[in-house]
């Protein structure tokens, strides 16, 4: 009796699984009508970008990745974090894609999925937002010191004269300002977060 032959299970699963819902999801989570699906890959965005040199992918390439469903790679890209929100690409885009707002969406999705190469930028945003939520106003001194201490401790001595300069010229306040009805703001933001959670939780 012949021994029954068994097939070996595949040694490796395919590396990339195309996630065709990605583009739709990004588009749906972007404020306004993103028109992301209208991209014709012309490269106006990548050509316009003042910080393209420091990006892993040009915005155009990133949109191609979204189309191809490369979720992990797209969210890991540093591109949205390098975006300086200059809106050059937005006004020049021949298809009127809301490129800058798509970048904001991708940042939010990356934070949610905990996918980023370097936490400097997400931390900065989070610290900024924490302070705004606490005081209702931004608090530059607290933000700068906290942020630089954590991420650029070596650069701090170099920055110190600047900080001192700003302080001595009364351009930075050591104490934060708080709005009067911070309770109202906190209630609004609490409800907003619940709504956001219901939508994308």
């Amino acid at each position, binding site marked *: 009796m012949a021994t029954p032959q068994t097939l070996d299970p595949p040694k490796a699963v395919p590396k990339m699984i195309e996630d065709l819902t990605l583009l739709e999801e990004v588009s749906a989570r972007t404020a306004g009508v993103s028109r992301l699906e209208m991209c014709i890959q*012309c490269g106006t965005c990548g*050509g316009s970008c003042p910080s393209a040199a420091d990006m892993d992918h*040009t915005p155009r*390439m990133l949109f191609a990745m979204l189309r191809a469903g490369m979720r992990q790679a797209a969210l890991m890209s540093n591109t949205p974090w390098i975006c300086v929100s200059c809106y050059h690409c937005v006004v*020049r885009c021949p298809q009127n894609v809301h490129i800058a707002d798509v970048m904001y969406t991708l940042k939010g999705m990356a934070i949610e999925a905990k996918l980023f190469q370097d936490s400097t930028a997400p931390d900065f945003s989070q610290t900024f937002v924490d302070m705004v939520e606490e005081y209702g106003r931004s608090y530059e001194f607290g933000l700068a010191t906290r942020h630089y201490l954590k991420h650029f401790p070596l650069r701090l001595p170099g920055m110190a004269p600047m900080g001192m300069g700003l302080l001595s010229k009364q351009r930075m306040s050591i104490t934060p300002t708080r709005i009067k009805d911070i309770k109202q703001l906190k209630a609004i933001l609490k409800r907003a977060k619940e709504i956001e959670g219901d939508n994308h939780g």
Partner: protein
Amino acid sequence: MTKTTTNQPDGQEKIGVYVCHCGSNIAGMVDVQQVAQWAGSRLKDRGVVVARDYKFMCSSLGQELIEKDIKELGLTRVVVAACSPHLHEKTFRTACERAGLNPFLCELVSIREQVSWVHTDKVVATQKSQAVVSGGVERVLHHEPLEPLTVPIHPDTLIVGGGIAGIQAALEIADAGYHVFIVEREPSIGGHMAQFDKTFPTLDCAACILTPKMVQAGTHPNITLLTWSEVEKVEGYVGNFDVTIRKKARKVNVEKCTGCGICQEKCPKKIIDDVYEAGLGYRKAIYTPFPQAVPKYPVLDVKNCIFFEKGTCKACQKFCPTDAIDFEQQDEILNVKVGNIILATGYDLFDARKVTNYGYGRLANVFTSIEMERLTNAAGPTNGQIVLRDGKTVPKAVGIIHCVGSRDRNFNNYCSVICCMQSLKFAHLVHERTGATVYNFYIDMRTPFKDYDEFYQRVLEESTLFVRGKVAEVTDAARLPGEEGKLIIQVEDTLAGKQRRIPVDMVILSTGLEPRRDSREVGKLFGISCSANGWFTEKHPKLDPVATMTEGIYIAGCAQGPKDIPASVAQGAAAAARVLGKIQQKEMALEPVRASVIEEKCSGCRICNNLCPFNAIFFHEDRMVTEINPALCQGCGTCVAACPAGAITGTGFSNEQVLAQIDGLLLLNVGDEPIPV
């Protein structure tokens, strides 16, 4: 084939219902036998005496079936349930006519495009088909036998626009022996083509192939050339247009003028020529736009003339050897009668100054494509030398940018068709004449017609550097070594996935084509419509590209949409063929879908008077009633819907017909009782 029922009629009308299988196109989703059976029994009281289904109603056997029933059963009305009336309405009307039934007593209802092809549930689709048939039956009961209207066709033709499309159309008609009037706004015919140097993909010299045609048009005994003229008013209708033309004063007596050119030589006033030289060259206050102009007579530009400004000068008059200058000459108003009109009014160029990131108008060495045409033209301001705006430096590196103002929602969202080939032509000419490094920046390379892609191959062979990417900006702000004093083209090279900054000496913007700025007013003048972008709308985008919705008005060339020279010529000839066909018929039948006023009902309220876009409605002040000119009426029915007294009726689409159709369509929804008529 199943014959379902033959009823004995008890009303006056005898209706035949024919349900088509269209192979399986309809029968696959609709139970056609059931539809026919249902019509035969359920609609018996409505006058249906026979209801059949058949595999292909449009086949000759299918048509014979109808003819036979008309003859043998004495049918007075026919309803065919098959495909869209836009496809076969004429087929079945003709079949009825052959059998002696007035063709307008036949109604075709669509159960293919609107039922079987778009629905997925056979039961529901069959029910809907029954409703549609019922609607047709109710409607056809109110049809009336109609006779087509006939109007005579005046043999003369008006062509508006003397570019290559208009010239071609004019020559075709004139050669066939009929008279043509060409009205051209500029001092000479020739249009944009007269400005070009070479034409793609053969690199024929534009002047060499255009000039003979211009001369032919200028000397043809059957062509009346009205340059420096504009159409002011169009009245009448197909076959019988009355056109008012303003012949602007040239201030030159063409009877005396020999076109010697001394006046231009002696005129002391030099003006930048924004039209023919695209702003790159100069002309005088009295001028012919270019040496080969047809007609040869100059035009005096009153706005820039020193005599008209200050009251002295008259240099042109003093030196004219034939005393042809006439400062007193006034505009002339001409009235011509024509049977058909061809609009070949062409295009305007996109204004590249709007794309501020490309710097045209701010950065000296950014040029537009039309400027480039003049630069490369041997008769142009630089005698064909490709140089920078300083007038002398030959560029070492040139960037050509495609799609400027086209395929861009910030400007025009359509493709301008000619720019890719035009850009390739410039790449070749720059390479040939300067040896400069040439870059072409494109989004997609579009070279679809005969020998076009071969030309692309040739330009590739010439080592032109192609960069796939829409240029982001052209700047003179140097950032890197080697950029000082240059124009820097910043672009994402999308195939390399990297942003590049390419320093060049000269940038050429391949600007797109736009509808004439006054295309909407011109459309209104001639009673035709424009697309959202402003191009004239053709009757059918595929099957009737040079006719318009207004009988007797045809379009050709870029007025209909962006196109290149071969396509413009083809359309000019096509429009001419259509016009000649009409002239040959001597008279034509008009579709009798028309509105008419029942005078006894008209209260003279005049509500309808201003609603008609074709000016078909006029008011009899003496009798205080309104009347509609059936030759002008196009049958839209707006006045019918607006008449508060119900005094206007529209043949083919009368209130009774539509209301009855509503009844029929909703038969299944209002109990199961027959509908009172």
